């Protein structure tokens, strides 16, 4: 059977490929995943085996990292690295910071382990497990879980507990996400969300103008993904308000700076998952739009929805662990405040 969808009249059944537009008797397929790149030597069994192997390897990594977090001294080392990255001293706050980091990372590793084990089971059993893109879905699940974990730990764990007789400090105004996040990381999710709306609208217009029908999977990713992204954005706003509304008991500006640092990281995690949720339908819509006019570069365009994920992850990873200059309080020793 020809692998050319134009000649064969339908998408290749050997891979999970989906029609994007059916127009004038011509069928244009989009491979949602990377199999077109490897289509000569990759089949569903290989993809499933590959997914299970990747999940198993990541499970071992998660177990190793979890054991690592249980080592005595791991949290202190992590706190030192965090202090170096943030440029904040650890004088007098090292035990609290280490404890917080230990709780955060242990929780994350347990969640990662649970997702990996569920991923192995799903990769081995469900039909989608035989698609290379399944691994990306697991990555998205990990990012979502990391965001939720950050928020829960940030809200539940009290970083510092000043004694009743200690001097207390507080900011005189309510803080907003804009106080903690840079322009790019703050606006990116909503820019992507707006672009997703436009791309989905454009796809609908093209569909009507060219009397073409959108393939079911692309429709699900573009429209369903857009709806999901909006829901994620709304939920993330609520979670942000919860994080920002949490009290920050502190007896000096250094304690407040550390609390701000962890708070900023939780906000970054939330914005990251909104950006990811907005990117996937945007990528799918753009690919479908371009493919409806230029069907030739399908292989590259089929991958397009996934390209943005590493870029988004990098953008937010670089911003994490660094306090914004404007929010960074002048470090004043306790004696000077008292």
């Amino acid at each position, binding site marked *: 059977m020809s692998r050319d969808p134009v000649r064969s009249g339908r998408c290749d059944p050997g891979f999970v490929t989906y029609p994007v537009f059916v127009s004038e008797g011509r069928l244009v397929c989009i491979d949602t995943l990377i199999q077109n790149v490897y289509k000569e030597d990759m089949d569903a069994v290989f993809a499933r085996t590959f997914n299970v192997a990747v999940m198993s390897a990541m499970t071992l990594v998660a177990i190793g990292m979890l054991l690592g977090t249980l080592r005595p001294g791991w949290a202190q080392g992590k706190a030192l690295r965090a202090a170096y990255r943030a440029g904040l001293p650890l004088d007098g706050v090292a035990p609290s910071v280490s404890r917080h980091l230990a709780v955060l990372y242990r929780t994350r590793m347990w969640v990662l382990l649970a997702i990996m084990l569920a991923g192995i089971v799903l990769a081995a059993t469900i039909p989608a497990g035989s698609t290379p893109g399944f691994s990306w879905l697991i990555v998205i699940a990990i990012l979502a879980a990391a965001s939720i974990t950050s928020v829960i730990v940030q809200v539940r764990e009290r970083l510092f507990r*000043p004694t*009743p*007789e*200690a*001097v*207390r*400090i*507080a*900011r*005189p*105004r*309510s803080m907003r996400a804009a106080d903690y996040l840079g322009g790019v990381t703050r606006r990116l999710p909503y820019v992507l969300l707006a672009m997703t709306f436009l791309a989905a609208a454009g796809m609908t217009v093209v569909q009507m103008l060219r009397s073409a029908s959108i393939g079911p999977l692309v429709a699900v990713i573009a429209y369903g993904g857009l709806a999901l992204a909006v829901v994620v954005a709304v939920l993330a706003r609520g979670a942000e308000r919860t994080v920002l*509304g*949490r*009290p*920050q*008991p*502190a007896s000096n*500006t250094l304690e407040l700076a550390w609390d701000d640092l962890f708070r900023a990281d939780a906000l970054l995690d939330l914005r990251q998952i909104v950006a990811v949720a907005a990117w996937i339908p945007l990528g799918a819509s753009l690919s479908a739009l371009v493919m409806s006019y230029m069907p030739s570069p399908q292989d590259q365009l089929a991958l397009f929805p996934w390209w943005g994920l590493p870029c988004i992850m990098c953008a937010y990873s670089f911003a994490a662990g660094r306090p914004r200059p404007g929010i960074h*309080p002048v470090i004043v020793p306790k004696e000077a*405040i*008292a």
Partner: protein
Amino acid sequence: MIVIDPASPTPPFEQLRAQLVAAVASGELAPGDRLPTVRRLAEELGVAPGTVARAYRELETAEVIVTRGRHGSFVSLDRDPVLRQAQRAAAAFADQIRLLRLDADEALALVTAALHATP
């Protein structure tokens, strides 16, 4: 930054009120800025919610801040609420001076002495 010292002879509500007024005067709190909720600020400063509520109430009376129901408390949009409060205090002082039948020079000397006195 608000600093509350439990060991200070000044009551916590007065420390808080004075520092919020100073923050408005210095521009650290801009007109329209939202203040933390009573409960949150009380927890951060380790004081009773009533202490923060009292400070907020006094600032509201002085029109330094305004409370918009459930939306919270905000710094008054008035250009200079601190100056207005000072003018109101000066007017009240002037009324007292007239009642006591003191002349302006004596009143000004008293004010100067009070301002130079160690708090």
